[in-house]
């Protein structure tokens, strides 16, 4: 089993939901594929999607919803063992 982290290329505020009333993009334990959107970074009044570059199981998030993040900061851990 190998684990990977998904990093944010941007600084800003991390959101796990597409809008405040919507369900989270993904839950811990969900199976994801390369390209799956796992969250948004809000900065400069625009929102950028954070996508998985590997497939597998999203083991856990490393930052809270609406937490400020730095560029290059790991936001989630993915395991290749589904």
């Amino acid at each position: 089993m190998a684990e990977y982290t998904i990093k944010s290329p941007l600084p800003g505020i991390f959101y796990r939901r597409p809008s405040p009333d919507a369900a989270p993009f993904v839950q811990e334990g969900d199976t994801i594929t390369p390209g799956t959107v796992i969250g948004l970074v809000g900065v400069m009044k625009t929102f950028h999607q954070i996508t998985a570059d590997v497939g597998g199981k999203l083991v856990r998030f490393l930052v809270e919803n609406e937490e400020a993040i730095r560029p290059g900061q790991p936001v989630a851990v993915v395991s290749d063992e589904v």
Partner: protein
Amino acid sequence: MLEVRNGGFETTVQDYPGRIGMLSLGFAPAGPMDDYAFRFANVLVGNPPGTAGLEITAGGLVIAFEDERAIAVCGADMGARLNGQPLELWRSYLVRAGDILEFDYLQGPGFRTYLAVSGGIDVPPVLGSRATYLPGAIGGFEGRKLQAGDRLPLGEPLTDPAQAAGRRVPASLIPSYPGYNEVWEVEATRGPQADPDYMTAEDMAFFFSHHWKLDAASNRTGYRLDIHKWQWARESGGAGGGHPSNILDNGYPVGAVNVCGDQPIILCIDGPTLGGFICNAVVAKAAMWKLGQMVPGWSYIRFKEVTLEEAITLLKQQDETIHESNLERS
């Protein structure tokens, strides 16, 4: 021509000083948020003042060159690589047809970096400037940020690219940017609507001492700062409106700290040109570049009061600093 392979997060064509003299017609100047880095990049490649280059915000830009040119990258470290080799910031290089310049994401403090190409980006001027004004969707390349597939025309270089290459800005003139959660000191003049008429002396003392947090929702239009419960010198805005931050609509200076109710917002170079809220201070023109390197959501600002005369002196010193005679040959 310069071919865009990836536009990155927000890359725009800009020139300095931008579309000036048009505030009365509702046009903000636009131009580079960090004009210090932008102007030095132009000087490094032998471009005259006013030549257009690229503002790269937060990284991600990939471009291919089709001509021999001198280039320079000045500003925040985005791990720039030329044909895969790391590129030194604040230094000019020679590029040839087929060369690829790539920017990764931010590698440290700072938020924007600038690319100058000898001859400049030769997009058509709009109302006297090539600067991209994003809210008005004019200037630059089709009035918008760059995207993959865009082909930018280049002007003819005035200097032999091989001669312009291989120069650097001396280390003493390269600014060091405060890091995440650190404080930028920003020179600003008091007023036009400060104490005692609009705010109390205590309000202004707080303004010039507080460490203001820069909100993540800050961009080239405005930089939002913390909410603060001001004392205010007036009960209401009178004919200007019910809240004491209201005044009759008037013109806003570029770089003004506009206090809308409880929230101060620095009006940046794409900001509104008029409105009906007070401006309790104005960022000195020579300090405006600092805004361009602050990280939304992370940086703090402390305003340092300067007089108008001091602000003018700072500007003269800055103009003398950003000069070819200060470059070193590497």
